[in-house]
């Protein structure tokens, strides 16, 4: 165990007292008290000492933070993130989008400042290229001492922070600011006095101009050591347990009576009374509660399955699932007789070479177990990983199945792909996560099957990565019980996590719904049918807190779910929540916090301890993992040290909604997690499927009424839908290539447009397995509404929807037979030349060449026109920077789409060209207008593909899908 020194001594003192009193109380032999006693965790199952020590530890850890819902992050709490010593290339603080944002630190005394060192946020480094430094003696009047020259600096990624050397500056406050309207964020700020190598800004009070949705609590609440032996709390929680157990029909009279007696005696104890007696009562109350907790009729099984593993060395929601970041050790274990006084632990995975084990699932009859395993190679973490052929094939996680006694082991998947989190489907098939979707533009059974005997390239996340740390996208796949018939359950472009099967048979999973919007928050909860049809949001499309909705599971006998509110930049873990979907689908309304003492990580702060792996027995009882260490924050491509990311932080517990938490097992050397009852459980309903995996790779969308969900748009205003296909990123490198205004644009191509009937309905063909989004276009072909998410159909599926952005709590209105359904599904009418593949030079430049370049080139027109060079070499940068970078801002990173606020509709450029008599009297022809509108509304990108090869593939697909296209 890693413990802070003060905690160790505190526990030691407690244990000494406790042990003494206990031995008197229980008549046990008194063991030697000393450092040897701390090796109590060595014994495999929890000993009495281990259990008692755990209660004390819980009092310290769980009592250290205020209970109840965490309040709004203050400016001071966010600002502290730039002086917390954590440098990772992300933002340490983050203001709102506002005029002249600033941040400042109070050095608490007048200091002769020698230099200031600034670490930038590396994915938006350009924002700070003209950063200003001011100082003040009193915090009121500031004087500027520096402004940066416009060059972009980084810090974390390149080891070259901005070093601002000052001469003859003495001040107490240092303020950093930007001019004009902007967000403001930095990774870290260091201040060094003249001639000293001591950062005097570290942990000093800081504040800033505003907070934003990205603000987080970097200033931990001061650790509050609870009063020794919070006996009142133990009794109160215990009595609530009594009530609940009685409802469940448990016989708890003896325990209830004993708790009442203890409570009575405790009240009699005078405040200056015997501390020893208080301690005795404390422990006795705990033992009484524990005995009762383990009598719970819902614990109608004797053995638990669990996993010992060291969490990944690179703590990040995605990287933690790659075999190459694994740390060795552990396996699958059974905790036998966990309710008895003498539980035993048995390993099921002897004989595996040293490696790592992930996410098990038990068959519904409780007789077989699925899990993932990868072999550990010490050198792999340090290797370049993009060329997978250079890596050992077994360093990737692979799916295995065996009987629960460890016999009959077989490997179900092969190859250089990470396959993990397998789950039994009701029909006997297996759904799992895998990197096998790879770079395919059209996902199909054929593609998935081809990965079984060849190494196909991966696709990658858009906002990070390099050769050392490629971030291969993994999504839902399925296969039959023999590992055959592998198919893509999902065609989503980005990551998906932690599948489970709900009572109604749907697959619940988290998905990174990061499509032309901010990358941070939207790891929301989705569901799909067992064949992957009807992917739909369950919770959290716009929700920031919690950030990652991971490990959702259906609760027996309830319509609610339990999940782990997890972090983006760490391993899976955080605060446990109940979700009642009937009560809403965003923010706090549908949630009940089960562990309110743990904040939602990252967006509410970084908790000092955390939960994971909830397995619900009811709405009130859960098997969980609890870690006594701070959730380890991610540090770019750099593995995080064992000290910050311990191999042994977590043990398994029985937790209830009243706050009682009983240790079931903890190994001092390695994390124990994923507790599952080793028993049969009801099989969810199998969902029938009309998907024809072998058939034509095509499906259909039917929209009932496009106006449903578009308030303010007059009926008849929408004439067509634009269907935009999204392609996977095939480069592992962050920011390369820049497709458009940001490093994070999705790859796109315009599949075409389809008609919207007078009643708002549309019915059209699309290739299956291709992620698409829709834009509702008006008479001019300008987008009035756009989707910042993706959907797709499976072969032979018709997916119906109500409208654009309709409420997710609505049934379709009963109006009329949709006009579009009365005819054959529309073919796609391809967009203008240069929209498939999407290329600015072919889509937009011909328009400029025809209408604009005559004046807008050096030597052409008047001086002003000549300055805005619109020849091919310069036009892209000039156009997207036109009007104060208005287009850049319009095209990038809004978390939600609003009616009428498409890129073209809000762009100054389009306004200039389309208004009145047009710019300089030029009336663009229809074709030119279409080209410009198509470009603007698909986020004004320079290109839609990540490589030449991908672009060639898109041309090939266009030919293959010709039957679905109306040729122009």
């Amino acid at each position, binding site marked *: 165990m890693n413990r802070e020194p003060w905690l160790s001594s505190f526990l030691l003192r407690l244990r000494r007292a406790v042990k003494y009193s206990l031995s008197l109380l229980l008549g046990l032999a008194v063991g030697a008290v000393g450092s040897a006693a701390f090796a109590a965790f060595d014994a495999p199952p929890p000993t009495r000492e281990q259990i008692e020590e755990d209660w004390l530890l819980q009092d310290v850890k769980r009592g250290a933070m205020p209970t109840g819902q965490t309040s709004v992050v203050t400016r001071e709490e966010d600002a502290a993130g730039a002086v917390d010593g954590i440098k990772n290339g992300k933002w340490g603080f983050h203001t709102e989008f506002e005029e002249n944002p600033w941040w400042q630190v109070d050095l608490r005394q007048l200091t002769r400042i020698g230099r200031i060192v600034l670490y930038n946020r590396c994915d938006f480094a350009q924002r700070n290229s003209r950063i200003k430094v001011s100082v003040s003696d009193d915090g009121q009047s500031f004087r500027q001492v520096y402004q940066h020259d416009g060059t972009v600096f980084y810090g974390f990624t390149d080891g070259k922070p901005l070093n601002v050397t000052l001469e003859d500056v003495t001040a107490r406050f240092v303020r950093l600011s930007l001019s004009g309207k902007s967000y403001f964020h930095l990774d870290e700020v260091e201040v060094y006095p003249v001639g000293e190598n001591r950062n005097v800004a570290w942990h000093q009070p800081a504040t800033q101009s505003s907070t934003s949705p990205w603000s987080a609590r970097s200033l931990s609440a001061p650790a509050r050591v609870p009063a020794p032996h919070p006996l009142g709390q133990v009794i109160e929680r215990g009595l609530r347990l009594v009530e609940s157990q009685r*409802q469940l029909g448990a016989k708890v009279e003896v325990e209830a009576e004993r708790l009442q007696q203890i409570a009575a005696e405790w009240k009699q104890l005078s405040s200056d009374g015997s501390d020893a007696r208080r301690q005795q009562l404390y422990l006795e109350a705990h033992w009484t509660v524990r005995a009762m907790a383990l009598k719970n009729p819902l614990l109608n099984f004797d053995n638990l399955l669990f996993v010992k593993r060291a969490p990944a060395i690179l703590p990040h929601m995605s990287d933690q699932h790659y075999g190459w970041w694994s740390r060795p050790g552990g396996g699958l274990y059974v905790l036998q007789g966990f309710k008895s006084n003498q539980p035993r632990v048995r390993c099921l995975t002897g004989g595996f070479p040293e490696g790592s084990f992930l996410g098990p699932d038990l068959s519904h009859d409780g007789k077989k177990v699925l899990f993932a395993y990868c072999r550990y190679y010490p050198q792999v973490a340090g290797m370049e990983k993009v060329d997978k052929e250079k890596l050992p094939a077994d360093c990737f996680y692979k799916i295995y199945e065996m009987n629960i006694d460890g016999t009959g082991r077989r490997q179900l998947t092969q190859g250089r792909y990470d396959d993990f989190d397998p789950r039994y489907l*009701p*029909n006997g098939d297996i759904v799992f996560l895998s990197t096998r979707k790879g770079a395919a533009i059209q996902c199909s059974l054929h593609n998935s099957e081809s990965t079984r005997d060849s190494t196909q390239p991966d696709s990658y996340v858009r906002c990070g990565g390099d050769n050392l740390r490629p971030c291969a996208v993994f999504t839902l796949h399925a296969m039959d019980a023999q590992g055959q018939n592998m198919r893509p359950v999902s065609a989503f472009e980005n990551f998906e996590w932690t599948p489970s099967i709900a009572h*109604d*048979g749907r697959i619940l999973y988290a998905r990174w719904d990061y499509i032309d919007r901010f990358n941070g928050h939207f790891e929301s909860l989705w569901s799909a049918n067992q064949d992957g*049809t*009807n992917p*739909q949001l369950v919770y959290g*499309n*716009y929700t920031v807190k919690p950030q990652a909705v991971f490990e959702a599971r259906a609760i027996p006998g309830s*319509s609610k779910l339990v999940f782990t509110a997890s972090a983006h930049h760490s391993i899976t873990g955080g605060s446990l929540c109940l979700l009642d*979907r*009937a*009560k*809403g*689908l*965003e*923010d706090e*309304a549908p949630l009940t916090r089960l562990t309110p003492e743990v904040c939602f990580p990252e967006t509410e702060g970084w908790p000092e301890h955390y939960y994971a792996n909830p397995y619900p027995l009811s709405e009130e009882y859960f098997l969980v993992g609890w870690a006594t260490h701070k959730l380890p924050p991610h540090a770019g491509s750099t593995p995080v040290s064992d000290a910050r990311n311990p191999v042994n932080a977590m043990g398994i517990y029985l937790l209830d909604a009243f706050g009682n938490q009983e240790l079931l097992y903890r190994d001092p050397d390695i994390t124990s997690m994923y507790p599952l009852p080793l028993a049969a459980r009801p099989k969810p*309903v*199998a*969902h*029938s499927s*009309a998907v024809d995996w072998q058939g034509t790779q095509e499906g259909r969308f*039917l929209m*009932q009424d496009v106006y449903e*969900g578009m*308030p*303010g748009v007059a009926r008849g205003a929408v004439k067509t839908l634009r269907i935009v296909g999204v392609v996977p990123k095939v480069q592992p490198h962050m920011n390369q290539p820049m497709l458009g205004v940001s490093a994070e644009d999705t790859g796109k191509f315009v599949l075409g447009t389809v008609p919207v009937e007078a009643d708002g309905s549309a*019915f059209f063909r699309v290739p299956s397995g291709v992620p698409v989004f829709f834009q509702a276009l008006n008479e001019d072909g300008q987008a009035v509404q756009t989707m910042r998410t993706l959907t797709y159909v499976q072969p032979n599926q*018709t*997916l*119906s929807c109500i409208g654009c*952005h309709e*409420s*997710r*709590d*609505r*049934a*379709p*209105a*009963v*109006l*009329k*037979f*949709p006009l579009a*359904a*009365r*005819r054959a599904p529309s073919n796609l009418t391809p967009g203008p030349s240069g929209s498939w593949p999407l290329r600015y030079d072919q889509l937009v430049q011909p328009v400029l060449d025809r209408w604009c370049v005559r004046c807008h080139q050096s030597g052409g027109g008047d001086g002003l026109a000549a300055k805005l060079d619109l020849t091919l070499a310069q036009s892209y940068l000039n156009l997207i920077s036109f009007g104060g970078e208005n287009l850049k801002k319009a095209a990038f990173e809004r978390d939600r789409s*609003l*009616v*009428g606020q498409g890129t073209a509709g809000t762009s100054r450029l389009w306004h200039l060209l389309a208004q009145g008599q047009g710019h300089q009297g030029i009336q663009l022809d229809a074709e030119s207008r279409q080209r410009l509108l198509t470009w603007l509304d698909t986020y004004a990108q320079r290109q839609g593909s990540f490589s030449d090869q991908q672009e060639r593939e898109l041309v090939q697909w266009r030919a293959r899908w010709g039957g679905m296209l109306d040729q122009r």
Partner: protein
Amino acid sequence: MVVSCRNRAKRCCLTHLSHYCFAMIRAFLIIKPTSVLNAVVPLWALGCGLAVGLGSRVQAAQPPVPSQRLGPVALAVAPDGTKLYIAGSTAQSIAIFDPVRGSIVQTLATPGAPSGLTLDRQGKVLVVTCAAPSSRVCWIDAVSGKTLQSMPVGHTAMSPVLSRDGKTLYVCNRFENTISVIDVASQRERMRLPVSREPFAADLTPDGKTLLVAHHLHAGRADADVVAATVSIIDTDALKVVKTLALPNGSGLLRGMRISPDGKYACVTHVLGRFHLPTTQLDRGWMNSNALSIIDLSEMKLLNTVLLDNVDSGAANPWALGWTGDGKTLAVTHAGTHELSVIDWPALLDKLGKLPATEPTTAATDYSVSSRWVGDVPNDLAFMVGLRQRIKLHGKGPRALALSGNRVFVAHYFSDSLEVVNLAQPPLKAVALSLGAKAAMSVTQRGEMLFNDASICFQGWQSCASCHSEDARVDGMNWDLLNDGIGNPKNVKSLLLVHRTPPVMSLGVRDTAETAVRAGIRSILFTVQPEETAVAIDEWLKSLKPMPSPRLVNGKLSAAAKRGQKLFNDSKVGCARCHPPGLFTDLKNHDVGTRGKFDQATDLFDTPTLIELWRTAPYLHDGSAVTVRDVLTTANPTNQHGDTLSLTPPQIEDLVDYLLSL
């Protein structure tokens, strides 16, 4: 005191025992005739050739034989809560249950299957409707169990409603489309009031001045934009329908209706079908949602319609309902998902009352609120959140409900069981009350249960009965199933004789009914079920018998119908060519010029049987003909559908009369 209690207990035991012996003897006696009846089924299964040999008509339903199973369909509770009266439609008896002792204390045989019952305000007299082509209504002494009086009413009587003063009784004659208005004192039927199609439930305002009648099915075309069943408002002084309230578009299969204790509102349970949409999925009530319509009696208008489903969990086939005496709680049973909804009635009214009456014009959308104005409510799957608790019941098919004080009693039609929920003891849960040992379910009975069971459907949105009603007939709606392509909605067909009249569906796209049953489980319920489920449903469907037509006079064709029969068989008119007597179908597709506005490129449609034609309106594959007369006249302009152009109007009427007698 103690002694008398003991005596009473002893007496009851004896009564119970004798009833048990009687039931045993009766069960023994009926074994033989039942097996003979069953033996007919395999013969039928041999197909159409033999069917003709069985006679010119398919065998009509025999009076049902009493069974050991109770089959509760209605409940009444004594004013003091000491007795529950259970209408056992399968057993053809009323079971009297003592909630304190937890057992049946008396069983009263009834002349036919009881379909509804009500108690007078004193709890002294029990009024029972016994449904049959010639129904009877009985007055029973609630204490002694003696039948006091009995009189004939119309075809399939149900939902008896007694005025507060006990002087007037109203009875719905479901298949006769009439209400019997009975003067209790004189035992005279004052009037048989014609109403719209299939009056199924009724209730009377406390002042006795207004009778509301809920109609099970709509009475119009099915290919219209608006298709909805109605509620009739009847002035009991004038004895006429003064207003017809249309429920929201898609409303059908109205089952239960009650007026609130304060007399201000009426509530109706029904299915709200989204019938305009191709049936691609079930998520979020895409096909059928399940609703409660609220009628404001002060203005005699529909206040609104709320959905009883949740966003990811349907609450199929809402059926019985009732308020607590204080009017604070409304309880609704869900016969499809086997649940009870307990609704905070004042809170529901309050929430409805606060919504704007017109659509707000703001451009912003608040994704956390689904209902922004009253018009959003009928599509809002979150409206009841916080206003209602859904309570899982243990039994199957809760079709009957009664309230007494804080207790809600629910009786289950299929599982033959009774449960009680005590509203004063949160968290609310259902406690089973024993109705004694019961006979095992036959395959046929299981099939009927599964046909009505939405718990096997994806998310519980619907059962087979959500479109075919509980007895496998019709809901009168058009549905755009995917089995024949998208965009060509077809009228729901009755499943009577479906196994004997292949192929199946209006275009004959399923070769047999067996295929269609399995396709329905897969593509309408979106689930995978074991083969036994489909087999049981097959067996039940095969066991269905035609209901004698209300047009028959003493079970025989009327004079007009006999004239019509001659025309029907006349080769010049040509009806019998494709509809030969027997099954009244040649099992082939024909072009009879009925291709409609939604049909795709085909003129050939399956020839349906004409048996029970009287209850399967609207007509033709697309439900475009409201009446059989329309089929013979306006829907046959080119004379392709038999030579009806040459028939005189009186001949048409005769032919109609015959067709509606089958």
